[in-house]
């Protein structure tokens, strides 16, 4: 079963890359952008058919490796 996880920076953590991307978008004429925050996306294929168990497994991975909880939040966004 495939499970996806999105890792984003917490609100009060500086994201200089997001800022530069925002400024570049601005320069290209996308003037309606309020803010850009850059994150990470993972697609993980786990050997598990129970959706709940698969999600729990990926959540554990997020806590232990994929995200650093001092600066990042994680969200399990879909199963298929």
């Amino acid at each position: 079963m495939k499970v996806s996880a999105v890792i984003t920076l917490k609100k009060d953590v500086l994201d200089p890359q997001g800022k530069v991307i925002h400024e570049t978008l601005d320069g290209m004429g996308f003037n309606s952008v309020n803010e850009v925050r850059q994150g990470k996306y993972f697609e993980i294929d786990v050997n598990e058919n129970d959706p709940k168990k698969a999600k729990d497994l990926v959540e554990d991975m997020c806590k232990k490796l994929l995200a650093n909880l001092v600066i990042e939040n994680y969200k399990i966004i879909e199963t298929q």
Partner: protein
Amino acid sequence: MKSSVITFPGSNCDRDMDVALTKFGFKNKMVWHNDQELPKSDLIVLPGGFSYGDYLRCGSMASKSKIMNSVINFAKSGGLVMGICNGFQILVEAELVPGVLLRNKYLQFICKNVHVKVDNKENTFFKNLDKKVLEFHIAHNEGNYFCTNDQLKEIEDNNQIAIYYCDQNGNTNDQINPNGSIKNIAGIFNKEKNVLGMMPHPERMIDESLSGEDGSIFFKNLLNNIK
């Protein structure tokens, strides 16, 4: 005195550290990341470099390698552990010291000499050091020290800030902050002060004709403190 330097895939300051430790009288051993056990040591060093190509987050993969279980046990039982640059990043990812190291504020790799102010000498690393300001070298892309407000309060309450970026007279301010670190923090201890993580490289300042001698002062003092 015995020391061990851990080599991870992508470490590139491990041999410099070996040269520095040996020069000042440590009997040093190199330890591969895939080993399970540490040789008997008075000091463990996690060296600088780009372990695992800085994949995911700097130091995150290395912090889960086999040898790190032994390093964590060694640190938890009071053993001296020092992480330099990528070694500092590994220490924060292993949660042996608080906080994280973010990308430098202005998105540039910084490679230059800096001055650091030693704030706390009540520990084995800096005890009896007769200089307050040292000139070290930094070379990093992710050295922007960050922690939560709660962590910062705890760090300050426990005197865990080891060194600050400063000018040559020891003044700390925003202009002298190379990477955006909170409070100009360049290095930090764990609560018990037996684990030190710092971005600057003392091992690059051990030759008067090539660099400067402040690294020599640091290592000589460290050896005397461990003896």
